[in-house]
């Protein structure tokens, strides 16, 4: 009898609540969601219920991907949840309390669960796949030697890949595989290797006379663009991922550097001094005439990186210090985004990881949101880090 009465009251309250919330919804003015209107505007979002590392990670992830964590009064969206044992949370439209997402996570570490939740939130808000669960590779400088490391995109969980006590540089991911291609001096000469991260198997891609440097793996993982000096000048070459089928693409005496691929694999963008000054060029990946890429407002372009959606090329300009710039892939007006060097696009074609000179001579990794131009440091190493590349 007593039970029944409780149940009765509970259902009544629920019903009343439901009526109120329904009424509330119909009386609310139409919500305008800004997500497609202006991506350069940060999405104001509030976080409650999470603590410690989970809170910090969630805030970092969301802010990197274009949100701004604000108080609940200022927020357009609210994230609520808990991290007792595992991460669970919900995403609401702040004004209406309409739930857009509700999930609990298990497995992995709390960081892994938090990254997964952040990606789900971003997908719910923008319909673009999040990047919080991606990896990066980079070069760590130990003074007279340097080694290749990989880590989570935010710099956590670094793993040392090379241990050669030599110079290793210019890591490049083989798309969709736990495999890197990089340059190492372990033989005494700069050669190019592929390295399967799970098995540790290394294979030589190029060890010709002179310098074999700056490898860049094609988006389909089948070819490698690189700079070889074997013919007497440092020029652009392409080979299969196992080093066979080597083809020379440029023949300038002044030399080329820093190749990168268009996402369709048809074009390579690189730096050349063919005209006497340092500038960006493109060439068909099967050979042909090299074409100057116009970068109005930015000079001395090096280190190009093509966005995964194919629309933009990020690069380093040198105009009294280094600047991260972007230019449309067909060339044109360059936009200077921030001070720094060696940009690499995230799979979302929105976030860029790059190298920043903190103190003179010390380099660290930072993340840049191209739309909001917000920069966040992601360096977790004490040593100098550079040449970050995003796994895609």
């Amino acid at each position, binding site marked *: 009898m007593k039970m029944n009465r409780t149940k009765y009251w509970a259902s009544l309250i629920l019903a009343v609540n439901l009526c109120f919330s329904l009424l509330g919804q119909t009386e609310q003015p139409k919500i305008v969601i800004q997500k497609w209107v202006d991506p350069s505007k940060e999405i104001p979002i509030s976080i409650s219920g999470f603590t410690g590392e989970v809170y910090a990670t969630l805030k970092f992830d969301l802010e990197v991907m274009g949100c701004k964590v604000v108080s609940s009064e200022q927020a357009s969206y609210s994230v609520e949840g808990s991290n007792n044992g595992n991460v669970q949370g919900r995403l609401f439209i702040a004004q209406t309390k309409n739930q857009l997402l509700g999930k609990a996570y298990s497995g992995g570490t709390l960081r892994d669960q938090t990254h997964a939740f952040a990606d789900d939130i971003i997908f719910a808000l923008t319909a673009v796949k999040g990047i919080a669960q991606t990896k990066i590779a980079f070069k760590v400088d130990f003074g007279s030697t340097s080694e290749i490391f990989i880590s989570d995109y935010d710099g956590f969980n670094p793993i040392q890949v090379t241990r050669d006590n030599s110079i290793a540089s210019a890591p490049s991911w083989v798309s969709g595989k736990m495999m890197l291609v990089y340059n190492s001096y372990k033989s005494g000469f700069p050669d190019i290797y592929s390295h399967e991260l799970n098995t540790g198997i290394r294979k030589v891609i190029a060890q010709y006379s002179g310098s074999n440097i700056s490898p860049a793996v094609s988006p389909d993982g089948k070819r490698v663009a690189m700079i070889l000096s074997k013919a007497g000048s440092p020029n652009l070459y392409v080979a299969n991922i196992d080093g066979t089928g080597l083809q020379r693409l440029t023949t300038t005496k002044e030399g080329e550097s820093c190749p990168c691929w268009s996402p369709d694999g048809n074009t390579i963008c690189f730096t050349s001094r063919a005209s006497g000054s340092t500038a960006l060029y493109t060439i068909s990946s099967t050979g042909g005439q090299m074409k*100057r890429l116009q970068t109005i407002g930015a000079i001395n372009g090096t280190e190009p990186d093509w966005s995964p959606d194919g629309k933009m090329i990020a690069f380093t300009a040198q105009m009294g210090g280094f600047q991260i710039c972007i230019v449309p892939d067909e060339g044109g007006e360059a936009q200077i985004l921030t001070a720094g060097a060696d940009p690499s696009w995230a799979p979302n074609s929105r976030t860029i990881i790059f190298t920043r000179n903190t103190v003179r001579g010390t380099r660290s990794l930072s993340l840049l949101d191209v739309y909001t131009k917000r920069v966040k440091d992601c360096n977790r190493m004490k040593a100098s880090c550079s040449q970050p590349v995003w796994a895609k």
Partner: protein
Amino acid sequence: MKNLKIKVELVLVVLAVVSVVVGCKRKPQPPLTYIPGVSKPITNEVAGFGKEGTTGIETDKTIAIPIPLPTTNEVATPLADRDLIEGMIPDRDTFKLNIIYFDFDRSSIRTSERSKLDAIAKVLKSKTETKIQIEGHCDERGTEEYNRTLGERRALAAREYLIRSGINADRIFTISYGEDKPADPGHNEEAWAKNRRDEFILLLPK
């Protein structure tokens, strides 16, 4: 018979001279954009690497620049097989004082550095059993992989000078360290000037 041979040779020489002269006359008007090492005649500098200070920063007005294919006399000499120096003993002392220095972002040999290269060429000529490895280095003011190419260009510029001095190309080996091995770890012009360099390692037979 001998006379005929001389005559034939004479004719060939005359033909060669005529073709050079004709070639010069047929040369099109100088292009608007200066392309070092292509349109420039070989003067008193190392060919193809531009005269110091003439290849300054250009404006970005030009969009498409046709890249001239190198003509026969400008094709670089391919590098010799690396196996040729397998097991040779590196001697870093002999040419310790012959380190040559470069201007910022340049790979042309400064006039002031030529005597050091001449001295190296002399030693190589007298010790025919030796080979040489040239290490190109940069200061930290370029981007990393750009510098790795620049270091190689600096090593290749010295190689070219030695080849022109009569050293066989298969005795000269190059390597670029980019900005990874500074001679001076400082971050000022004094340090940078010391870091823009070529070092020479004499390779002795086993």
